[in-house]
């Protein structure tokens, strides 16, 4: 094998943020989170940032599906809503202890997504996107019409208990506390997803996304890894839903609406769905554009649409993709 063995031997590192760099970046991000109350000037700004973090978590969930499964979902709001409704309804009705309600609100959507994933993960392309849309809208219709559950389309307010997991729960509705909590959770989620991408199961999932047939020929059953990615994505969306519901003390069918999924997808695309951090960056960018545009223009969704068109045409890998390209070019 001499000819083949002595080809160009330049070694290229493919993953720039590897090993120690990942841990250091995560530690710095967590430290920034702790410092946020001193960095963000007003309660309103803190509240906006907290809500941007909810969007970032949901967008990360959508982006993770694209990154690891190669699948586009228009129904991720189903798990966002399921998380929010589970915690809201269970706490309001005192059916279980509040801590158990939080755990159920995260585990239930994860399990539902895993089972759904076993069924719909094998379906590709437009049919898959339409199925996720249908599933999301089915949940929306149920909570919209089922008034006995949570007052139907009016939505339902609920009061948080005094304590959750031994800590004062009122902090969850304090912008400063929620901002730090949501930021910290987002950083830990991104860190965990980066580790997942490097793990063996993450590599198998990437292999399945790249070439499912090839992965099967290598001896892998492709259904379980795909369903697992669905479950992880739903887990993240459910956390976002729980945080949002607890912060607002209110749940409404709009949490399940396809437009929530659609915006999360737009955020992921604008940020760069091929990067773990891309959707979160896209969410923060879009959240503030939405907020700013909303002050001046009644038809702010049109502005978001124009931004999406511009980003898609000029930055096909999103904001983070553009930043990565500029970083690579810096020394030339």
């Amino acid at each position, binding site marked *: 094998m001499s000819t*083949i063995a002595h080809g160009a031997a330049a070694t290229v590192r493919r993953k720039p943020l590897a090993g120690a760099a990942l841990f250091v970046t995560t530690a710095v991000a967590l430290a920034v989170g702790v410092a946020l109350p001193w960095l963000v000037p007003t309660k309103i700004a803190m509240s906006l940032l907290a809500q941007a973090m909810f969007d970032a978590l949901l967008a990360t969930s959508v982006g993770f599906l694209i990154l690891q499964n190669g699948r586009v979902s228009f129904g991720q709001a189903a798990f966002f809503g399921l998380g929010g409704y589970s915690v809201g309804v269970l706490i309001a009705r005192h059916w279980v202890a509040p801590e158990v309600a939080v755990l159920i609100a995260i585990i239930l959507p994860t399990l539902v997504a895993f089972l759904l994933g076993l069924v719909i993960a094998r379906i590709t392309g437009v049919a898959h996107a339409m199925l996720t849309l249908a599933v999301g809208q089915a949940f929306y219709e149920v909570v919209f019409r089922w008034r006995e559950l949570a007052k139907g389309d009016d939505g339902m307010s609920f009061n948080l208990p005094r304590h959750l997991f031994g800590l004062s729960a009122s902090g969850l509705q304090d912008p400063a506390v929620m901002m730090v909590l949501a930021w910290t959770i987002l950083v830990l989620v991104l860190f965990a997803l980066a580790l997942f991408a490097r793990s063996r199961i993450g590599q198998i999932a990437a292999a399945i996304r790249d070439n499912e047939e090839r992965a099967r020929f290598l001896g892998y059953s492709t259904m379980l890894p795909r369903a697992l990615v669905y479950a992880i994505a739903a887990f993240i969306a459910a956390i976002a839903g729980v945080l949002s519901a607890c912060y607002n003390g209110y749940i409404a069918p709009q949490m399940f609406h396809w437009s929530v999924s659609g915006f999360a997808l737009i955020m992921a695309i604008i940020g760069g769905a091929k990067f773990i951090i891309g959707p979160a960056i896209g969410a923060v960018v879009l959240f503030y554009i939405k907020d700013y545009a909303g002050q001046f223009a009644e038809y702010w969704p049109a502005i978001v649409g124009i931004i999406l068109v511009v980003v898609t045409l000029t930055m096909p890998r999103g904001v983070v993709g553009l930043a990565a390209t500029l970083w690579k070019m810096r020394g030339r």
Partner: protein
Amino acid sequence: MALLAFNDVHALYGRARILNGVTFAVDRGERVALVGRNGVGKTTVVNTLCGMTRIAQGQIAVNGRVMKDLRGYIAAQNGIAVVMQGRGILPSLTVEENLLLGTATRRPGPWSLDKVQALFPILRERRSSPGLALSGGQQQMLAIGRALMANPDLLILDEPSEGLAPVIVDELAALLVKLGEDGIGILLIEQNISLIHRVAQRFYVLSKGAVAESGSLHDVSRDELKRHIAI
């Protein structure tokens, strides 16, 4: 007992019948070529083994056991590794990650990452490179190395010489003969007469979805084999 046996296999793509009663066998350590013109169903034989086409009639047996479940990963778990046409390098994984994916079946055997990298030193040197950053010949080595990581009893290679320079095809031939001598069965699906002649001991000619000719490579000249393929 044959390592792999197709017995009168008829296979369909949708309603189109592609294989019309294919019968052949490969024994342990044997090097067999499956030859034929484009479109006669050579790749369909592999796809059928991996469950991508529906069997209308006939049986496939591995180690004498009839395969009733032909989902893609079952063949691999039964000791059959496939190097597909086009090599199937996974683009988002590094060379080493591509190799490690070959251990899905966790079958015991002599092949390990170290041994594969010793056989192909370039795969060690470029272990952190994206798989697709390798040259065509190196990618073929990666595909074969990944297949060996599964410690297969039978290695199926679909058009492995496609796109390779003649000097690399020579090296590929020597490697496949060596693997056969080490006890791995080789099923070589090829049109390159030179490679077939240097690697295979027996051949089957596929024509119109069925085996039209078969025999020993020792008994046929290259020109005769060419004529067989032109059936």
